[in-house]
Every structure is written in C-alpha cells, then in structure tokens.
C-alpha cells in the first residue's frame, strides 16, 4: 500500500517516515511510505491509498480532502503525541485503520 505524509518543509516528517518504514518491515507489511509537500501531492494522487497530514499543518485537511475525495483516498491528521514522539508504529496503525 502507498501512504503519503504531508507537512510543510518535510524535515521532521522524514524522521517519522523512517520509523514507519521500520515498523512496517517488522510487521511484514508491504508499504511504500513517503513525505510530500502539499503542492507535490497532486501528482501522486492516483497512486495513493492513505494521506496523513502533520499536525502543524492540519489546517490543510479540508483542502486536501476536497481533492482526495474524488479519488476515494481517506485523509486524516496525525495524532499529536504520536507525531511528537516519532512513533512509527502508532502512525502506521492509524494509516492501516483508515484503509480497513
């Protein structure tokens, strides 16, 4: 499955991406996880299965949802605490829950 994380500059989110990939590997889940800026998202819409938004840019949710709805991609904001502790496991679970 393909998971996109959206944030502003991609600096801190890339740490989370790394932890999520590790978590996915440990669980034996095949997942492609990448961080994008909002603007880049459009080019990837067709391939994506879940979009998770960093809590610091959660005001983008409405607009991203607007576009993602037509592709039937679920969109959610990453839990504050899970984001802050860079908890890859928890955020991966959040993504999985959204698709099931």
């Amino acid at each position, binding site marked *: 499955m393909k998971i996109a994380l959206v944030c502003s500059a991609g600096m801190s989110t890339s740490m989370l991406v790394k932890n999520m990939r590790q978590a996915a590997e440990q669980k034996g889940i095949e997942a492609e996880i990448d961080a994008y800026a909002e603007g880049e998202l459009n080019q990837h819409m067709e391939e994506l299965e879940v979009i998770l938004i960093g*809590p610091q*840019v959660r*005001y983008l949710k409405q607009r991203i949802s607007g576009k993602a709805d037509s592709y039937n991609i679920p969109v959610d904001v990453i839990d504050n605490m899970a*984001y802050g502790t860079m908890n890859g496991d928890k955020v991966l679970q959040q993504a999985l829950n959204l698709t099931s």
Partner: protein
Amino acid sequence: MNQNKFMHFMEEKFMPIAGKIGSLRHLVAIRDGFVGIMPLIIIGSLAVLINNFPWDGFQNFMVMVFGESWKMVGDSVWNGSFAILSLLVTASIAYKLAESYEADGISAALIAVGALVVLTPVTDDFGLSFTWLGAQGLFVAVVTSIISTEVFRILGKYEKLRIKMPEGVPEGVTKSFNALLPAALILFAAGLVNTLITLFFGQSIHELVFSVIQEPLQGLSNTLGSALLFAFLNQLLWFFGLHGTNILGPIMESIYLPLIEENQSLFAAGTSAFDVPYIVTKPFFDAYVFMGGSGTTLALIFAIFLVVKSRHYRTVGKLSSAPGIFNINEPMLFGLPVVLNPVMLVPFILIPFVLTIVAYSAISVGFVPKTVAILPWTTPPILSGYLVTGGSWSGVVLQLINLSIATAMYIPFIMAADRSLMKNTDSEDFIQEERKVSGQ
C-alpha cells in the same frame, strides 16, 4: 477552570481563523514562491559574505592568489541572485499560483515576468534598472504576479480566446498558443498602466508604491514593537500546534526581505555591519530568538537535561536534540508536548519576547553588529551568530546570553511539569510509550 475556558475559546474562535489564513490560496502561493527562490537568495548572501569576510589574512590571501579583481566573481553572483529578487519571485509566485489552479504554470510565470518588466523603468542607456528588480520592487512584483496570473487563469477558461490549431499539432505548441491572447491582454494592460501612471505622477509605479507603501511599512517593521508582535503571533500559533512560521511567512518575507537586502548591499559596498540601517530582520529572529526552533526550544532541551527526572521528558529531550541543533523542533513541540500544554504556555510565549528585547537592545546600543547575511534557517546556533553578523564573535556572545536566559526561564516550568508527571497515575502510559520509541 478559567484556563480551560480560555483554551476552549481559542480552539473554537482563533484556530479556525488562523487555519483559514494559513490555507488561503494566494498567501500560500506567495509563501511557496519565496521558498522557491530561497536557494538563490542564500547563494547571493553567501557571495557577499565571502567577499567581505572580516579576516585580513583571508582578504590578503585572496588578493595574493587571485589578484585585486577576485571580488568580481562574488559581485556578479549577487547580481544574478539577490539583486534580481523581484524578478525571480514574480516568476515563482505566478508559477505556484497557476499550479494551484491547475493552470499552465510556465506560461503564467513568463507572462508575469514580462508584465513586471513592462512596469519597470528603463535606465538612460537602455538597461533594466537593478534598483527595481531587487528588493525595492518587491511589492509591485508580488502584486503583479498575482494579478497577472489571476487574469491569465480567468481568460484561459474561455474557449473563444483559444486559437484553434489543426489536429496533430503537439500539445506543447497548442498550449503556448492558448496563452497568446491572454498574454497579449495582460501585457498591453500593464503597458497602459505604466504609461498612465508615468504621465499623471511623473514617476513609475515602482517609485510610487515604494514611497507611499513599502518605505513607511519598512520603517514601521524595524521597530521593537513590531518585532515583539511578530514573535508573539508566531508563538501563539505554534502553541496551538499551527505552523506559525509558515502562516506568517508571506507577510514576513515581503516586509522583512527588503530590510536584510538593504543591510546586505550596504555591507557589500563596504559599510560596517554596525552602521547598516536595520535591526529587525528575518535572520535577527532566526539567530537570536528562535534558536532550536520557535520558542527557543534548544534552551528547553538544555533545561530538560539539567533538571528533569521523568523518563518521558528525558526521552523527548534526547529525541529532539539532533533535529534541535538544526532548529527543527516538531518532536519537542508535539512530543513533550508544548502544544496546548497550559504549563508551557507562559515560558513559550514569554521567552521569545524577552530574547527579542535583549537582542534588540544589544544591537541598538552597538554591542553587537546588525544582521548582514541570510542563512538557511537550519544553520545551527553559534555558527549562525558568527555568520549572520558578517563574522563577529559578539553575535555568538549574544546567542549564548540569550540561550542562558531562556534555559533559566524554562527551568522552573519544566520542573513543575516534571513533578506533576511523576505524580500522575497516567505516567505508566508514558513509560510504555517511550519504551516503544526508544526500542527497549
């Protein structure tokens, strides 16, 4: 109880407004436009810094090895980057805005640049005036790129304005012909505006806007009051977990970039960093106030290592150290958390306030030179203090003083938070959580 009410009020009333501002299409395009040209700005800044590095040994060495004219390289790099700031940002904003409408970005960018040049005065020997292509022309540039792109997009919707091409013509060609009529309308309109303004006011739109709007605003933004206002708004937004720097970005860049540009070009021309005009600039905040990220969280990391006992806080401190050195602090803000944490509200807002005052005072009485370089915002403190002042150790001293003040101010609050966390029965959850994080 009151505190809860306040939080609730802010969540309900303030947050949606801040969120709306943060996602306004035009502001987002302006912000992203500035982000896009940042590499060139930083390169230009670097060129000036190298040319004017205050080590006699270095200067003598360069002259000895490359001859007297070695500075020409840096000077011409400046011309191609910072000196044409307005031109660059016009293209970049127009592109981003068009892209957000899913319109043709490259055409929009080209037309906007054309329109800007139409509005820009020509020098006596028929050259483009660098005076207005740089930061002085920024307001006209931003407005031109937005209006031109809006007109381009709206006209682009009308089928009748598209020139019909025979079947089989490649898409690129069709696209560029589609842009023909809108481009013609925009450029002729710009030409008309330029002519009318020159006829009626005897000066170009650049000169008019600069003297009526941009200059007064710049004078205003160089005051302690507006520096404090900016620091306060930035902190408040971040306290609610919103990207303050990002939301305030468009205003910050449009108003404060010209200030650092002027400092820098005077510095390049040989003025000492003490004598350049502006105290408050974006590098001023980056170097002296937001060390480790908004809220001077590098100091919070120090405070944690100095006094905190609970494992959760120490783990977050450790996790945040490496990114913190590069002024990235989301792990700290959301992990501690600082965001929506009533205990941290006071220091988080107060500390940048105090640091702004200290830095402003230190510069205005002449202890520390003013900022004359733009660095990537990820430049670690200490290094940034040295470079941003054009190579002065007093900048580093100011950073150390500010870090000490901030650490001392964070200590009582993080101790209080620490004690209540240790008492809290929920702390078991935290311990579990951090075991997962640290992989134990």
